[in-house]
């Protein structure tokens, strides 16, 4: 079986991450319960007229995929696999409210078309003129991991050489409003640095697009090797640590060999306990978190994947993501763990190249 590498990365997030030469050198501090992305200059990548027509999710996805492709040095790609929890949710909102407000009259198709979950993947294929394999996964907090799993399988078996994968989700006003009603969004505005100790229910909602070129051939730009990945629809809190050790064992690696544990903590007092349980087995390991920087969304873990890739390549860990301080000097193996509201868990193992 082939090894699988991350050959390039791209991130559009609530931090200044779209420039690959930087690595969280300057942190954008928010005091909010919803944080939108810092927009790159979309016109550098898409003609202005086209950009105006595109939904935010499409724009973020297309630009992130172009940045990733550029860095990989490729002109074309064999396949495109997208993960998105909600798709272009603003257009879904627009179309539903128009149906209700106008009693099914005067509707136009644009928002219906853009609300289709695979519209981002389809638009990227159009932009890149890629007629290859094209899938879209829409499974909550395992949407991005499903895309990763699919790409990894194809590259291992040599079915394709270079695959573009990504996670993308956008903030929708109505969706956020109703999620505040059920306390999935924090009731209070909170400072970025305080999210981790919030002790309140709900998360700070966010959005973003993180895209990657995966390949079964290493090259100069390579960030890391993807060693293993496993997803779970359910996993009781009491079994998280046990399952993590099983996962490491299956991949012939000891807990002591993990140099960094990247966790999906979002400051929700009711569900961060899953991470606490896991860290009990990693007390001597450097730990990091990231959702205070990018916000919580169905594909937020793709930002964690971006972070880990960057750490392995640069061998540095930004202060803003440190959960503890172990003075780890070199990073060889990174374990990522994510879940959302106790469902759809994933372990991802990355290795320095």
């Amino acid at each position: 079986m082939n090894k699988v590498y991350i050959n390039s990365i791209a991130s559009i997030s609530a931090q200044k991450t779209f420039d690959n030469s930087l690595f969280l050198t300057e942190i954008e501090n928010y005091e909010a319960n919803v944080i939108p992305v810092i927009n790159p200059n979309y016109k550098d990548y898409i003609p202005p007229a086209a950009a105006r027509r595109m939904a935010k999710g499409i724009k973020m996805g297309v630009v992130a995929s172009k940045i990733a492709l550029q860095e990989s040095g490729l002109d074309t790609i064999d396949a495109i696999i997208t993960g998105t929890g909600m798709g272009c949710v603003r257009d879904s909102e627009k179309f539903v409210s128009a149906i209700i407000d106008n009693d099914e009259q005067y509707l136009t198709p644009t928002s219906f078309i853009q609300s289709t979950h695979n519209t981002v993947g389809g638009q990227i294929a159009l932009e890149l003129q890629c007629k290859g394999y094209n899938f879209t996964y829409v499974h909550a907090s395992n949407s991005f991991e499903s895309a990763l799993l699919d790409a990894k399988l194809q590259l291992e078996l040599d079915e394709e050489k270079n695959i573009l994968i990504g996670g993308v989700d956008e903030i929708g006003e109505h969706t956020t409003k109703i999620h505040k009603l059920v306390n999935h969004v924090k009731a209070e505005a909170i400072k970025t640095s305080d999210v981790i100790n919030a002790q309140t229910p709900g998360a700070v909602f966010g959005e973003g697009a993180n895209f990657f070129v995966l390949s079964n051939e290493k090259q100069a730009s390579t960030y890391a090797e993807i060693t293993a990945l496993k997803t779970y629809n359910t996993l009781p809190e009491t079994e998280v640590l046990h399952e993590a050790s099983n996962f490491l064992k299956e991949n012939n690696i000891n807990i002591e060999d993990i140099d960094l544990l990247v966790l999906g903590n979002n400051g929700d007092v009711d569900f961060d306990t899953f991470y606490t349980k896991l860290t009990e087995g990693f007390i001597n390991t450097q730990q990091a978190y990231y959702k205070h920087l990018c916000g919580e969304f169905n594909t937020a873990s793709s930002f964690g994947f971006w972070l880990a890739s960057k750490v392995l390549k640069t061998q540095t860990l930004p202060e803003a993501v440190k959960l503890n301080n172990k003075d780890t000097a070199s990073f060889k193996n990174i374990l990522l763990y994510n879940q959302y509201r106790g469902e759809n868990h994933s372990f991802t193992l990355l290795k320095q190249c």
Partner: protein
Amino acid sequence: MSKGVAITGMGIISAIGNNVVENYQSLIHGKKGISRVSKIKTNHVNDIMVGEIDFTNEALEQQLGLTSDNNYSRTALLGAIAAKQAIKDSGITNINAYKTGLISATSVGGMDMTERYYYDYLTNKATHKYIEGHHAGDSTQKIAAQLGIEKSLVTTISTACSSAANAIMLGARLIKSGQLDRVVVGGTDCLSKFTINGFKTLMILSDTYNTPFDENRKGLNLGEAAAFLVLESDKVVQEENKKVLAYVKGYGNANDAYHQTASSENGDGATLAMQKALEVAGYKPENIDYVNAHGTATGNNDLSEGRAIIRIFGDNVPDFSSTKAYTGHTLAAAGAIEAIYSVLALQNNIIYPNLNFKTQMKEFNITPQLELKEKPLQSVMSNSFGFGGNCSTVIYSKEQ
């Protein structure tokens, strides 16, 4: 690694039947499930026809034994019914005896409840339970829970009208590569005002019975349905002495990269998908005995698909027909519905008639199968195409 990908169980609920047997009876007797919409209040009631399932949500909840505080969308209800049938049909009593995953497909997800309670959420607390039921993964999580699948690979695919074909494709690849021993694959979509109005704005809904591959076709009828299949590895089939209904022999996925909602005139994506599926199966075009076409009865699809079929099969186009005239276009579920129809065709050596056809299309001279036909079948090709240029083909066969 597993050489074969065996289908050992099937479950379905559609406008032409509440289980596999009922669906087959309707197919061979030419019984359509198309009518005026009755369960959704829409201004378009007299402008469109749909393939609607008879049961109300309450009846479906009762069949599943759900209490009144449940938050199942109709998509989840239909999916759970079909998936449970498939498990029963496969004779599975202990789901966790083998590494079992679930891959579902949906495009509507919980939109039926979202559009019903969209503004009510802001004022009526009793409706809040449906907020988390909106996202596409929710119905899949519920189906997994209904089947008792825990701590396993469960995911959802949404590639518009090709979704379920892709779920079957991924499932087959996971079995072949040895990642799973068993996987339940399929799709589910209910009717909604959202899709009715969406397709209406695109002006591709027929105001009468849909007529696939007919020169005067006026568009599609939307349908609702759910269908799931159990795929098992050679190991499980041997150890459990399973009866194999058919095999997933080949599959191909490609993107038309032409237009967000329209297929290219020459069906580039469709041609590529069929080509790839033949390659994976190790088949030549002449190995295909019947093509269950996507055949939505839109002007664009049937022309593009027809041309792609001619590009693949040349002068020897096998018997082909679309079953959309029976069920309507069931969107993300269509690939799984038609997978089951393909397997039933193989089991019974039967080709279904393409209903409602009257006039030959001008652009080419291929004609769908118009009468029920008995013929020994070895392999069947099933096409599913969708928005976003997504094109998928799966080949089902009697041989491993």
